[in-house]
């Protein structure tokens, strides 16, 4: 039953198809030939046109990927350089601060040392000046004493001979005689 219906439908449909084909001017062998040719063209294009183009595209894509990779690496290198720059700047800053601090300490120490040295020199100079003044004063006193002594002795020498009596002279001689014995 169903096959009868199918044949009836088939017969009916083939006639429809034939009608449509005739109506639209379809030629199945020509369509098949065109399909074959189309297939051949597609295969040829695929082999001789698409493959190089795809290769070029793939190469370009690779190049782009490498470029991106390089850009990424450069960006990372830049970031690393920035980081290093910051580290170096930080280290330089720390070092500079340390050097400044050391310079301040050394300066303070040198200033203190020089101050002490200057104080010592001043004290030494003062002490020497005092000693020189004292020595000069002593020298002056000695000179004055000697001069006064010399004058006293000279005066006494000039006066004594006139002042001493004969008894005094005899007594002086007797003193020496007694001293000898």
């Amino acid at each position, binding site marked *: 039953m169903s096959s009868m219906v199918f044949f009836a439908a088939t017969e009916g449909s083939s006639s429809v198809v034939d009608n449509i084909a005739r109506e639209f001017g379809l030629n199945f062998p020509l369509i098949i030939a065109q399909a074959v040719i189309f297939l051949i063209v597609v295969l040829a294009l695929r082999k001789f046109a698409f493959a190089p183009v795809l290769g070029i595209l793939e190469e370009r894509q690779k190049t782009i990927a490498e470029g991106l990779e390089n850009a990424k690496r450069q960006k990372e290198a830049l970031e690393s350089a920035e980081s290093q720059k910051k580290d170096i700047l930080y280290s330089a800053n720390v070092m500079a601060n340390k050097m400044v601090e050391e310079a301040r300490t050394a300066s303070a120490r040198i200033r203190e040392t020089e101050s002490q040295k200057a104080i010592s020199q001043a004290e030494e100079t003062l002490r020497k000046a005092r000693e020189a003044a004292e020595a000069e004063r002593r020298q002056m006193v000695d000179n004055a*004493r000697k001069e006064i002594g*010399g004058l006293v*002795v000279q005066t006494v020498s000039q006066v004594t001979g006139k002042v001493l009596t004969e008894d005094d*002279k005899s007594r002086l001689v007797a003193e020496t005689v007694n001293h000898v014995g």
Partner: protein
Amino acid sequence: MKISRQSKRAAKERFNACMDNGALSEARVRETVSELLDKKPKGYYPTLAHLVRLVRLETLRKTVTVTTAESIDDATKQTLSERLNNRYGAGLIYVYQTDPALIAGMRVQIGSDVFDGTVKGRLNRLKEIF
């Protein structure tokens, strides 16, 4: 001139022979020197030279130089000689001098010993103190 030990010893022996009671006898010295010059024994010249040196030293040691501003009387001289004989022994030779610059007092020098009782000496010591 180099004088040998032997000559020194010979001169010392002759010098000791010239001593009389601890005092040097001028007569014996003259006699010894004359004998040396007459006999001229071997090495007599160095002996004589050393003897002269010993006599000179002894003379200096026994010479008393008394210096005063004015001359002193005999009694004072006698007293002084007695005292010096007691202290230094006999045989002293006295040399008396006067020096008005001493002003007053007496200065006695025996060898290296000096007793200065002059006014000038006292003033000099006073000046030294100044």
